[in-house]
């Protein structure tokens, strides 16, 4: 949760000054926004903007990496990172991880999808980079491992007193579970923990509930804890981590708003709408305030019982995009 808006106001000013596309946008859609005194008064970008435009607030020479999304729903977002932003994202992830799992480093298993093979710097690779800081040992595992890769995984279970943390995008972890199940593997990594997030859409399409995901993970991998998180490639470093009570909380460096689907006005607790996420980490691109295409609602942290003071996010699912009518941009196919 963001308590002091000064950093965010400075970030907003920085992006409006250095990203012409964003400045044009903000002036037209949020005229006179000036210095915001409430978090809901900051301009926000639709997440699709990153799929259609090269949005950056630094010079080309300062860009060290271009990160792309997993592209689960079509076009990929392009995220331009400079040194400071990349470092800030890793620090943000580490802080969240430490808060949830403690300072001790542990063995980590990174489950990767098919997109890991290419040269592109994907969100999945960024997550591996970020979380590696916390790893004592790392095993990068494809979601459909061969025999030798599987043997490496099983070997990890030998160290029973040092159970690993398994990290991957939800769909990739699900594919790994299926692949292991197909080979008759069960209880592969007793007492381990799964940290997974993103890509729920594919599982929803397959009608896999979070309960079924957890049950199969416990059976096949032998995990004792399944932790989900919510985050966007556009805001790597600011993730909503599930606490022990199963609630996803606002990160320290981020904020959550829910906006009405018709009016985009901010909504109070318990009311569903578009999820808007705000973060203070994005300096090289204007991704500090993003309106997602996901639907959700927020409830007060006091309803949880854990000590995390951040608002709780309940994700409902992907918004059904209404088809645009009219002939002005009639499509051929």
């Amino acid at each position: 949760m963001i308590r002091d808006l000064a950093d965010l106001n400075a970030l907003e000013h920085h992006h409006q000054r250095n990203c012409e596309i964003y400045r044009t946008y903000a002036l037209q859609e949020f005229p006179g926004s000036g210095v915001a005194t409430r978090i809901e008064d900051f301009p926000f970008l639709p997440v699709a903007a990153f799929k259609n435009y090269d949005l950056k607030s630094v010079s080309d020479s300062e860009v060290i990496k271009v990160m792309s999304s997993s592209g689960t729903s079509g076009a990929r977002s392009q995220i331009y990172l400079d040194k400071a932003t990349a470092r800030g994202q890793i620090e943000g992830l580490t802080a969240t991880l430490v808060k949830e799992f403690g300072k001790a480093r542990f063995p980590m298993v990174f489950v990767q999808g098919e997109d890991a093979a290419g040269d592109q710097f994907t969100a999945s690779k960024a997550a591996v980079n970020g979380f590696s800081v916390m790893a004592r040992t790392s095993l990068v595992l494809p979601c459909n491992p061969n025999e030798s890769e599987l043997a490496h995984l099983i070997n990890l279970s030998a160290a029973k007193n040092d159970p690993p943390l398994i990290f991957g995008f939800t769909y990739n972890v699900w594919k790994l579970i299926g692949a292991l199940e197909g080979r008759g593997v069960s209880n592969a990594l007793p007492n381990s923990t799964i940290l997974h997030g993103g890509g729920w859409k594919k599982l929803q399409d397959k009608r896999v509930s979070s309960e079924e995901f957890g049950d199969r993970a416990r059976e096949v991998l032998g995990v004792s804890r399944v932790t989900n998180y919510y985050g966007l490639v556009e805001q790597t470093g600011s993730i909503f981590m599930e606490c022990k009570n199963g609630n996803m909380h606002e990160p320290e460096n981020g904020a959550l708003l829910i906006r009405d689907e018709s009016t985009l006005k901010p909504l109070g607790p318990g009311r569903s709408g578009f999820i808007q996420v705000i973060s203070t980490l994005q300096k090289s691109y204007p991704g500090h305030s993003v309106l997602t295409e996901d639907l959700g609602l927020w409830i007060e942290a006091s309803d949880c019982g854990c000590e995390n003071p951040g608002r709780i996010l309940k994700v409902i699912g992907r918004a059904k995009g209404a088809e645009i009518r009219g002939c002005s941009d009639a499509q051929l196919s």
Partner: protein
Amino acid sequence: MPSSPNPLTLNISSRLAENVLLAPAQDAFSEDRLSFLAELSRELLNGREFRAHPDLVTFAFFIRPTNLRKYLSTHGPLSGYSKIGVGSALHISPGNIPINFAFSWLYGFIAGCSNLVRLPSKPSPQSDYFLDVFSRLIAKPKYKFFEESNYFFRSERGDPALENLLGKVDALIVWGGDETVDYFRNMKTRPDVRQLYFPSRQSSLIMSSHQVLTTLKSHFRDEFVKNAYNDTFLTDCNACSSPSKIFFIGSHMANEKASREFFAALEAFVLLQGRKPPIIQRMMDSLASHKHGGSDLVLESHGVAIKTLSPGSNEHTGGRPLRFGVFAKYMLSSISEVSAELSDNEQTVLHWGLPERELETLMTDPLWRRSSASRLVPLGSALEIGFFWEGRDNPSALIKFVQKDFESKEIEVVDETQSEPS
């Protein structure tokens, strides 16, 4: 809804498409075609679930005999000519207006053509329902010829089978934006192909500010605002005939007040509807407008769904698309100032509360005459598509006028043997 795949939506390479090309052209406006349309109208109107789709209702009413006779009354027999369809017509319909393909087909059908109709790639309840009713009807033995000469299909852009058809048809009817029109203009077609294009257009609404204010206070308020909504947000302010430029005519004070109250009333009506206004699409347009000096644009907000810009104070309005709830707002003292503000690709000009004589005067303005405007119709009529569209009689453009004179020319035969020697 139909429970099985529609038999009409077969692959384009089917021999059925070739059969359509071979079907002989028929008489335009023939009785058997009118009977078929009357039956199609009845069948469409019989459907229970059909009532949920006003665009289908409009089409079904449009093809009723009374409406068709009204149109045909302007097309009496032409002495010395037969009117027959030009031959095979290929229709390319837009992807995001579900029932547009049916109107396009109608132009060709009533003209006596055989028809190949490319459907929107995405099925819609309306198109499924139409095709279901249509296929049941043409299965009747009496309509066998229509079954063989009308074919609906889906295809990808660049499909070789589609390109093959393009080179063979006698008429090409293309709906869509300029990009679509350009694409098909550059395709190989027969040299004598008849081409009807429906490119990108813009439209306007001119209103008497005094009448706007009066109406908003009267019991006609709801109907007035609903008409404005139907002409704009029903198609996400994104149809060629939806007004994107709003002209308020009157004194400075009246214009300011009418503008404020009109947009407030429309905004409130939009938010009352179940459908989400296209705010996010509008935001994406704002991102695009940086290429056109967009950072100089000042958009006035009228709530959440509507924003306006005032061309008088904005130099670069040309690049910003006027759609998805962004309107250009003009404050004029007289209707005579309207013509100068019409777009290069103007289509429909809607009016409200203006005396007939002023509208007549507008139509005699040299600038109006030079413009592409082809409709001056009341508010509430923006989407009422007819046989006359784009300033032309579309079925007639698909007719071949065959001159006929069955009598031999009288020749005066001179018998030279009978002639007297000179």
